[in-house]
């Protein structure tokens, strides 16, 4: 597995200062878009079923114990020195938080 997550202190500070909007701010149409993005675009590295590829698996058991705030920061800011790109600009914080919530609890519509 890849090394430990490294998140710059400036990023953590920014997150602390800007409280995350609640997931309810992501409307149903956008939720459908995000699930499509998850399966097909996140899936280009993590696998369409999220079982892993060049990137690590994103299944609930693989992410168990990782704080959602850290996962949300990884989605938004990427992982320096790793292939994970920052998705801010494409996803806002509410969307990233909603996606992480869905991933951690398991995405029921992923094909198996």
């Amino acid at each position, binding site marked *: 597995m890849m090394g430990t997550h490294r998140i710059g202190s400036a990023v953590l500070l920014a997150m602390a200062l800007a409280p995350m909007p609640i997931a309810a701010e992501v409307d149903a149409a956008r939720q459908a878009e995000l699930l499509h993005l998850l399966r*097909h*675009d996140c899936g*280009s*590295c993590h696998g*369409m079923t999220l*079982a*892993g*590829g060049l990137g690590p698996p994103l299944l609930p058991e693989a992410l168990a114990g990782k704080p959602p705030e850290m996962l949300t920061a990884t989605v938004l800011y990427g992982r320096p*020195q790793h*292939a994970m790109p920052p998705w801010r600009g494409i996803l806002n914080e509410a969307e990233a938080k909603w996606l992480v919530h869905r991933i951690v609890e398991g995405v029921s519509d992923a094909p198996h």
Partner: protein
Amino acid sequence: MRHIEIPALLIALLVTGCAAPRATGDLGLVVERAAGRVLLVETTGRSRLATIPGLGDLSHASIVYSRDERYGYVFGRDGGLTKVDLLRGRIDRRVVQSGNSIGGAISQDGRLIAVSNYTPGGVKVFDAGTLTLVADIPAISASGERSKVVGLADAPGNRFVFSLFDTGEIWVADLSVPSEPKVTKYTDIGKQPYDALMTADGRYYLAGLFGEDGLALLDLWHPEAGVRRILADYGRGEQKLPVYKMPHLEGWAMAGRYAFIPAVGRHEVLVVDSETWQEVSRIPVHGQPIFVMGRPDGRQVWVNFAFPDNDTLQVIDVTRLAVVQELKPGKAVLHMEFTPRGEAIWVSARDDDRLVVYATDSFEELATLTADKPSGIFFTSRAHRIGL
């Protein structure tokens, strides 16, 4: 989604009975990635012939062909290796050979199928007729670390060449004696090779590096010279853009002495002189290139792009080293494939559930075919090309 299909029986009749026998030189398979199916198509009348289900998880699937162009070997993400009979329009046989795989190759003599695996990392080699395991080559570095394998390509001499993503190595496996592979290992070739290509003459193997600038080059005519780094200064000190999808090097373009290579994290196609391996030019393009594919005559190079610029295709004229045409085939253009002599190109638009066929001289749209979340398009003419 419902499609009208020519029944498999009809194809069988064409093969076995009343009608004239069918050949396969104008056939191809299209991956329907979400449905776990492949679509059998023909490029003369530009039509669908059959859908073949039951191939498992086909995200990132690729296909090679038997030398008689009758069978396609489909490499699925879930470790499935499926041998599809194009004449009968059905699965001939299938094995699930690993937990997570990324592609494969067929040997020069057509007898061996090699599959590169992420989990567990390594290469497995199968008999092309029966799909029985012939050799297993775990990708374990000298320090004991297991690596994902990428960039598997066939080379003359019944060899397979591949790269180890996690440990930065290139291995050459000689399967002259299939059950006793002789593996030559090149270590410290660069950080995170993510894909690789073989030149059409089978001489040069080039691995793209994600973890650093440049590419790793192995000259198989002079393997004793080892792996050297090329284009190491490219982009030094510049900030890369976020990479939402790794470029593909397989299917890269070679036109005359110029090689066209997707730049990682930049809106550029690199042009490299294959005699000196020095940079000749950087062509600005619409987005981050994914596939940079040369028309068979080498006159044009077609480029598709990573998310979020993946609704666009651009065409580079190699005599001008400039983009001369832009097309919008649909949402999420994942792949394109030239007909054997390149008068037409087939393009998959995943999110519009269709294939679009263009004339490569006039750029006229020749046909549109429905397909369910299509990704890779693979025509049987690949059977006789080295390094795919």
